[in-house]
């Protein structure tokens, strides 16, 4: 899509794009190049000398079970977060679509988690599930469950998934509501005349019609779980216990800033970049299709 008419000006457009291009070059392209370059270097522990080692850093990652574990864990974490938050959001949206009165009020309350910083979300859930004090821990104890995510790795994973999904429900809810809103009323009415009840209508008409949104949200949620949940992990578990919640982004940070393994961290960054590029391409393929029709 393009304008039919344009201004002719020799220097103005360059002036207008300059700020963004300069920032992009200095803080995006250049660091990305650096990461790429560093991923081929092996630096000694004091950062005094470095050696060009080609793909050694990548090979090392491939051979490193801790990295591969982190990969699998990240995938599991992402799909769990996406599935949980989208499922809950869809459920709420379907209900909210049915009620006329009060829909605005529900929305206002459901929107709040979106504005909460990930690290704050993590802190809130940490407080709820605090092994000694937490109110949820207390309730769980009453039904005979012993909660301690500082020791139990699957409980730790469950908690970060819960906190991450909680934050994303608002976003998904808004998109599902918008998608359902854009379904022509006449379609729903036609189905009602055909004798389809609310549940049946949802399954056979509404759900298929919002499937493009569902797909879009799936990609967005996975990107979110991959990159925006750093604060949650950092606050709730710091990757523990025993690396059991260490997802890829967290590992890049940990290996680079804490472990000072610059080459390895850079190689991980490069792999992450390729993952984002892949996800972005998928997302844009979808957006393009939507724009065309």
């Amino acid at each position, binding site marked *: 899509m393009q*304008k039919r*008419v*344009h*201004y*002719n000006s020799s220097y*103005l*457009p360059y002036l*207008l*794009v300059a*700020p*963004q*291009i300069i*920032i*992009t070059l*200095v803080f*995006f*392209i250049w*660091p990305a190049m*650096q990461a790429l370059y560093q991923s081929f270097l092996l630096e000694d522990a004091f950062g005094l000398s470095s050696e060009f080692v080609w793909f050694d850093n990548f090979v090392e990652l491939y051979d490193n079970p801790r990295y591969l574990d982190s990969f699998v864990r990240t995938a599991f974490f992402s799909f769990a977060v996406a599935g949980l938050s989208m499922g809950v959001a869809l*459920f*709420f949206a379907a*209900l909210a679509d*049915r*009620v006329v009165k*009060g829909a605005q009020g*529900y929305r*206002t*309350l*459901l*929107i*709040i988690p*979106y*504005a*909460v*910083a*990930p*690290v*704050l*979300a993590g*802190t*809130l859930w940490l*407080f709820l599930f605090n092994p*000694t*004090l937490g*109110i949820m821990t207390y309730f769980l104890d009453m039904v005979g469950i012993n909660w301690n995510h500082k020791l139990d790795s699957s409980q730790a994973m469950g908690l970060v998934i819960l906190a991450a999904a*909680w934050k994303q429900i608002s976003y998904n809810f*808004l*998109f599902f509501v918008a998608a359902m809103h854009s379904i022509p009323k006449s379609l729903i*009415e036609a189905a*009602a005349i055909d004798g389809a009840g609310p549940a049946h209508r949802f399954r056979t008409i509404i759900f298929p019609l919002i499937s493009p949104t569902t797909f879009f949200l799936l990609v967005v949620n996975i990107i979110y779980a991959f*990159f925006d949940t750093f*604060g949650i992990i*950092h*606050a709730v578990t710091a990757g523990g216990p025993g690396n059991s919640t260490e997802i890829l982004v967290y590992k*890049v940070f940990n290996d680079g*800033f804490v472990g000072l393994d610059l080459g390895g961290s850079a190689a991980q*960054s490069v792999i*992450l970049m390729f993952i984002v590029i892949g996800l972005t391409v998928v997302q844009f393929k979808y*957006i393009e299709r939507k*724009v065309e029709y």
Partner: protein
Amino acid sequence: MVENRPMTTFISHSVLIIGVALIVFPIWIMLVASSHDALRLTEVPLPLLPGDQFWENIKLLFSSKTFGAPIHLSLLNSLVMAMMISLGKISISVISAFAIVYFKFRFRMFFFWMIFVTLMLPVEVRILPTYEVVASLGMLDSYLGLSVPLIASATATFMFRQTFLTIPDELMEASRIDGASPMRFFFDVVIPMSRTNIAALFVILFIYGWNQYLWPLLITTDPDMYTVVMSIKQMLESGESEPMWHMIMLTALFAMLPPVLVVIFMQKIFVKGLTDSEK
């Protein structure tokens, strides 16, 4: 609502109320905890209803310096960072989108793709080298360092591009006949016609900026430059004893209040802007 079934409506409402209550529960507990004193928050079970120490706690929070940076300073830092990021992103995106939509010039597509690439490089994946660049520019522990590296945004540029493409070509031509230069047209027609998008984007970007965590964590070492969001983590880690939960929860309340208020009061515009961005 297609048919009138009072029973299903009643059930829908009940389920929604329970659901919303569950979603808001962590925030409720935060409010409750911030209104009790330190002692009460060491007794199991923790309270489910607010106490009477809220104002006392606020006084304590604002007078004390034992929790890292003074809270009013870190709140100010957060505000400055969030405003710089949101307004900076909007300004540079709106002018670059204007150039790309309304001008024909050499390397136009090249620039467009260059901006597009930023979409694929979230700060989390280029964190180390970006840190090095900022350090070598001497921008550590400064507002510029906090905001500028996060300012380039493909999303905002695309959103504005989309908006501008829906402005009829004839308006530009009419303004040319009226004698408006490109920049006059930009300020007199394009900007006023994009007001809603700018406002919606502001909400999204303000929240994005305010909630930054990893980036300020890395580039600030001076407590006077800490943002309120990152000071939470500092408080969680302070000392060996149990954290001071009532203070942490109160700080959390202050840390989430500005973005929550922004999103609630600009709800309509925000929802429209957010769901439109899918297009």
